[in-house]
């Protein structure tokens, strides 16, 4: 039974800021273990969609479920009740997020960045959290940077610490919002390599990216968003090679 529950299920999801509708009629499913890449022009609502999935934004219509559990609401007798912030925080624990601008905590070392949430939120014992953080940082290739502050790390190194920080909460789903867009070209590869490793280990990932090579190689599905709609969804090769919509074609001709 549970095996068939998708990791993420959006059903006619709608989101607006004031009267400005930024997501409309978003319906899709992401299977457990699936890597989904999202592409689309600036302002098409890609970031907003990710932020809805871990309830950094409230949705205004439709349904959004993660592992069959409503995000941000509880359903009782057909009526939706807003979750208490504490319960919303508990839902977010299982969803890792990586930001375009890293957002590492600058007053903490790499190691402290990674141990902070497990110790303070999950109340793991300090020793165990440190041990696990060492392993994670070694896994992203930063075993020798444990005591460095983010300000002393390159962009690529910072983003890898950010990935380790998210992984420390043992998420079942990882959201990446243009993780390589703020990086110098020669640093993009090291971050993508870490992400490829994660995908190979079976992590469910939703990745907003303009790295078409990564999408083609790693993604199981590719979504093209435009003006708050999902215009196209399919296997990356098909979408990239034979897009159905004129707008997709126009967009791809610019980025490829």
């Amino acid at each position: 039974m549970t095996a068939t529950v998708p990791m993420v299920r959006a059903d006619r999801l709608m989101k607006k800021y004031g009267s400005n509708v930024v997501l409309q009629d978003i319906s899709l499913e992401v299977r457990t273990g699936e890597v989904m890449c999202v592409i689309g022009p600036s302002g098409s609502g890609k970031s907003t969609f990710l932020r809805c999935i871990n309830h950094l934004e409230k949705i205004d219509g439709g349904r959004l479920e993660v592992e069959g559990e409503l995000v941000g609401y509880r359903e009782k007798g057909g009526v939706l009740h807003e979750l208490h912030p504490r319960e919303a925080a508990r839902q977010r624990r299982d969803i890792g997020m990586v930001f375009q601008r890293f957002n590492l905590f600058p007053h903490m070392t790499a190691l402290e960045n990674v141990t902070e949430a497990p110790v303070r939120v999950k109340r793991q014992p300090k020793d165990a959290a440190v041990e696990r953080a060492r392993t994670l940082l070694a896994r992203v290739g930063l075993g020798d940077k444990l005591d460095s502050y983010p300000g002393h790390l390159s962009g690529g190194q910072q983003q890898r610490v950010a990935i380790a920080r998210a992984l420390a909460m043992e998420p079942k789903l990882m959201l990446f919002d243009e993780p390589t867009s703020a990086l110098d070209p020669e640093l993009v590869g090291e971050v993508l390599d870490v992400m490829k490793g994660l995908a190979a280990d079976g992590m469910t990932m939703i990745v907003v990216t303009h790295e078409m090579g990564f999408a083609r190689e790693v993604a199981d599905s590719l979504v093209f968003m435009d003006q708050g709609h999902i215009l196209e969804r399919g296997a990356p090769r098909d979408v990239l090679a034979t897009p159905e919509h004129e707008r997709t074609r126009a967009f791809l001709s610019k980025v490829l």
Partner: protein
Amino acid sequence: MTTSTGGPAPTPAPGHEPIRAVPLRHPWRNVIGAVLIIAIAAIVWDAAVNRQAYDWPAVGKYLFDRRISEAAFVTLQLTVYSMVGAIVLGIILAVMRLSPNPILKSIAWVYIWIFRGTPVYVQLVFWGLLSTIYPTLDIGLPFLPPIAQLPTDQALNTFWIAVIGLALNEAAYMSEIVRAGILSVDRGQEEAATALGMGWGLTMRRIIIPQAMRIIIPPTGNEVISMLKTTSLVTAVPFTLDLYTRSRDISAETFNPIPLLIVASLWYLFVTSILMVGQYFLERRFARGLDRVDLTKGARLPQGDAPSVDSIANARGESEERR
């Protein structure tokens, strides 16, 4: 890309001589400096020899008078206790003002409105009259007989009334400084913490406030020094054991006010200097990771790297305004 800091400077490649140039001369600097030194020396000599009213022997006599040094210590205590209270309350008020809860927000707003909008001297007189308005302090539930009852003037002596009065006033200013500091922290920080499942309070305490401290400390240093001098107003309570009031009381007996003013000023300067040293170390502590220089390796704090004090000072206005 180098990752190590503070390594040995690269030795110049052979064949590259270090530059030996004649340094730029500043003749006018020297002239102006000389004129100033002569002028200051003249004033000092005049003050030391010609002006009897300074009464330097009396300055020497009272500088280390027990009553004065004790009063200086009392003033330091007033400053430290009231600032600690003000900082704690100021952080609470700032967090209340930024919280999503409209009730907490309004309470903080009204508090700041009242305590910043009335003179601290008037507030101190008011707290001094507290025992006239409320002769007893009752502990218990409203409309029920009190569990415990204490005469107000026994529960709170004038020292603590002075501390509370100063702290309540200062908290209004501190909360604005703290709020400016919190708002200066990048929004992405709160977002990242929230995405990790941290609640609002934890995010404030562990992520936002430690980063805001860097912006908060320099203007807080101003406030501490300003508070040191504001303690001279506690005579309004009336509390008379602080440095200024004490030295004035002594000079009222000796009919020789000027030397005691000098003595009090020297002590204020001395205490200010101690506080400035404390500020230096606090700034170092909270600059961790936020500076280009690695402090963990014992490097020096870069000069002039402090964030803009002016922008925050604007939030509270001139320090003399509330007198």
